[in-house]
């Protein structure tokens, strides 16, 4: 096999790079039930969250889409959903939607079981043990990179990120796209100033218009709050660090997405409708952003960091690449790829991207990221509009 990785075959032609069973709570009230089931099962994760009831409208829809997306991610073999029984986001609703992925799904509600949480946890462990045993029967097989969905993220950026790690990631994103795979760029507030460039790269007129309208709507809405987003970027600290215009700052961010044409713009947690490079509407908070990427089906995420971030993701391994020599030294345990050699050792961006490419293959093949080794697996769901969107003042 020339260029590929060893993954797990899933239904509907999907491929996972991890093989876990997920214990998913439908509502915050049973988070600990799900967690205690998972604690007793090897090779399992508990997907818990502070939501699932008292939510309506778009806020509820985004929560449902994200939980369904996370559980449907091909890194997950099967799902056991735990509900309480009186919540508005029911275990049955989640089960019906997750079953569309054709993976094993079981669900029950704590209120439907005689014996309370003690009996419910026993039931969950019993189902979970059967499911993890099934998962362990599956062996890794060779696949090519057309099966990979790569998420692109940056966090704790500094003036070095945009000229070292981000362009190195851009080469990888282009390579995945060239090999027939998929790549997703989130964090839409950080595209501002480069709309015209993104629009030029759009696959067709509709995509270009959507990029423009998405950013214009955001800029207009935030203007109503008295904030001119274009006027506050780059920050005084950025300017002192050498960044001049908003274009320069945003170009540093979107450098992660290389030069590939843009196929479309996705809602938060929405799955790409085809291969190639996609944009995702999504906030700038790293953990919410990477949760949306995993829910969209990204099996792996590359995150650039300058000042150093420890965060990982529960579903998709997060490969950390850093261009800052001091951060690579001080926070070495949180960094997977050292891009600071561009500064300290006369390495080129291409040299670092070659190292990153090998690391990406190793992680896809099962090697653990630093965040996985250290147990960092955050998730957070973006609340697009509060269920009660009024001011308390």
């Amino acid at each position, binding site marked *: 096999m020339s260029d590929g990785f060893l993954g797990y075959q899933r239904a509907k032609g999907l491929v996972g790079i991890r093989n876990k069973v997920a214990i998913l709570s439908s509502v915050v009230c049973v988070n600990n039930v799900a967690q205690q089931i998972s604690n007793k099962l090897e090779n399992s994760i508990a997907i818990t969250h502070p939501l699932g009831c008292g939510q309506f409208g778009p806020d509820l829809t985004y929560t449902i889409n994200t939980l369904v997306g996370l559980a449907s991610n091909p890194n997950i073999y099967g799902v056991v959903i735990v509900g309480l029984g009186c919540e508005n986001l029911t275990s049955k609703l989640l089960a019906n939607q997750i079953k569309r992925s054709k993976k094993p799904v079981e669900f029950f509600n704590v209120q439907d079981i005689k014996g309370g949480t003690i009996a419910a946890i026993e039931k969950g462990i019993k189902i979970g043990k059967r499911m993890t045993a099934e998962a362990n029967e599956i062996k890794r097989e060779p696949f090519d990179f057309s099966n990979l969905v790569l998420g692109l993220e940056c966090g704790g950026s500094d003036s070095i990120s945009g*000229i070292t790690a981000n362009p190195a990631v851009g080469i990888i994103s282009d390579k995945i796209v060239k090999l027939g795979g998929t790549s997703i760029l989130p964090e839409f507030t950080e595209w501002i*100033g480069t709309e015209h460039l993104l629009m030029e790269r759009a696959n067709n007129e509709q995509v270009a218009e959507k990029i423009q309208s998405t950013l214009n709507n955001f800029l207009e809405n935030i203007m109503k709050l008295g904030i001119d987003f274009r006027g506050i970027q780059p920050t005084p600290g950025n300017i002192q660090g*050498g960044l*001049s215009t908003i*274009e320069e700052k945003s*170009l540093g961010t979107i450098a992660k997405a290389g030069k590939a044409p843009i196929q479309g713009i996705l809602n938060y947690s929405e799955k790409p409708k085809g291969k190639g490079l996609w944009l995702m509407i999504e906030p700038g908070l790293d953990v919410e952003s990477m949760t949306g990427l995993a829910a969209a089906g990204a099996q792996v995420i590359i995150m650039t960091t300058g000042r150093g971030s420890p965060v990982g993701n529960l579903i998709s391994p997060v490969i950390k690449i850093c261009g800052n020599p001091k951060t690579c030294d001080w926070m070495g345990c949180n960094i997977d790829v050292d891009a600071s050699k*561009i500064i*300290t050792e*006369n390495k080129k*961006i291409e040299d670092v991207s070659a190292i990153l490419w090998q690391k990406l293959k190793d992680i896809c093949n099962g090697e653990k990221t630093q965040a996985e080794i250290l147990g960092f697996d955050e998730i957070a769901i973006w609340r697009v509009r509060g269920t009660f969107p009024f001011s308390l003042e």
Partner: protein
Amino acid sequence: MKNKYIIINIEDNCATSLDKILQDEVLEIHNNLIKIKQEIPFGHKFALKNINKGNQVIKYGEIIGIAIKDIKAGDWVHLHNIQSHYLEETK
């Protein structure tokens, strides 16, 4: 050996310093000798060629701004001599 500067894209007409570059330092870049006109702090940019007033400043192979003064090769490139093209266009 350390890199003193980085050029992200071959089409760029400015480079970003990766170390403090002193005034009058001479760098050989693409077989040209460029004399640095002012001290360039880490992370700041200098021009690789002359950029006349009104012309595009290119980094990442894209326009990051427009020169508002004549910029000579080796000049420090920052907000004293370039401005956003985007903000002018979207005013």
